[in-house]
């Protein structure tokens, strides 16, 4: 078993603790889509290239996420509703170290 627990707070404020596979090369944006926690077409619009910020989320319980890369950082500087704890879900790859992560989806912009 290589699932971990990740908690997603959706755009209506409802909290969902979900099982996240660590062996399928998935990221947090894809996890949200897989569990249908945001309507299709409102998240992951660019497919996960850090080019649209539709998967922006606020990290509530930072379990030690890797640093942002340049692309993610640049996109967040162009996005709206950005806070200090903003990240792009598509750039957070699901690894065993992320067990217990809690993120809140940013409003649709």
């Amino acid at each position, binding site marked *: 078993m290589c699932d971990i627990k990740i908690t997603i707070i959706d755009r209506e404020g409802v909290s969902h603790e979900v099982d996240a596979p660590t062996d399928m090369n998935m990221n947090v944006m894809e996890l949200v889509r897989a569990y249908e926690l945001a309507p299709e*077409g409102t998240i992951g619009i660019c497919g996960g290239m850090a*080019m649209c910020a539709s998967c922006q989320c606020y990290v509530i319980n930072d379990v030690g996420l890797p640093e942002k890369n340049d692309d993610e950082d640049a996109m967040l*500087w162009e996005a709206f509703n950005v806070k200090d704890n903003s990240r792009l879900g598509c750039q957070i790859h699901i690894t065993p170290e992320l067990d217990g992560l809690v993120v809140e989806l940013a409003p649709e912009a």
Partner: protein
Amino acid sequence: MIETDILIIGAGPTGLFAVFEAGLLKLRCHIIDGLPQPGGQLTELYPKKPIFDIPGYPSVGAAELIDNLMEQIKQFEPGFTLNEVAETIDKLEDGSFVVTTNKGTKHHAKAVAIAGGLGSFEPRKPQLENLGYYEDKGVEYFVKNPELFRDKKIVIAGGGDSALDWSIFLSDVAADVTLVHRRNEFRGALDSVEKVQDLKHQGKIKMITPGEITAIHGTDHVSGVTISDGVTDQLIPCDYYIPLFGLTPKLGPIANWGLDIEKNAIKVNNALDYQTNIEGIYAIGDVNTYPGKLKLILCGFHEATLMCQSVYNRINPGKKYVLKYTTVSGIDGFDGSRKEAEKPVVKAID
């Protein structure tokens, strides 16, 4: 009025390939797209990214795939209405359709295939009070007609390619260009970043970083903007404010056409021909949904092919046809060209 057999809405890979399959059945196509160039997401969002799951191509650049599709459909002479968004649809008594764009261009077609992907691209708008009031009164989201900006004072906001490219372009046209971004680092092609740096040093582009527009001023037209660095505000007089924060796709006017919509996509009959709940209107590619739907280019190609067969039967009831293979039959273009396999010779060997 533009006349065609199949009116395709969306010039992405699925819409373009539909032209090819329609052409094999002697059906003519016309394509409407809101962007100024064909290709949809591929050319607008990620032209240089490689795609690895197109059958037969171990790797193909997104823009290259579109170039190839344009070459592949050339002999079927598709018409294009670009830079216009399909807005309304009317079904006539004979079952044909009239589709009108936001600019009033009318298209008459025997069938309509919506290949709209994620929707039409609309600008992402900054959250500013009165922004809507100033639209077309000094707030512009696109540089469609550069002459509008001749000898004017312009403020451009954004940190990506379009903010860089339009700053460069307009520095030759406008009286004054100010580029505003929340930080001093920009994401774009290296030569664009370097060019802006040169123009800044030559005094042709003013830069305000970190900076963010927090208010727009003017009575009947924009006369200036307030730019804040988080601590102090400054009022910059200008004639135009151009926020360039990228584009986001929205289903747009199609959502009001009476089609069954589920999950921001159009429900279709996938057991048969990808027709929607309105007879004669089809939806193919990323814009449709059905049980098991996958948003993949290769699935869009398949859906386009089945749609064309269905349209053929709709337009030519009772007219017999069997699927042909291009290797056997070749391709007869509407432009008079013919492509075919080289014929073997029958010749004695001495």
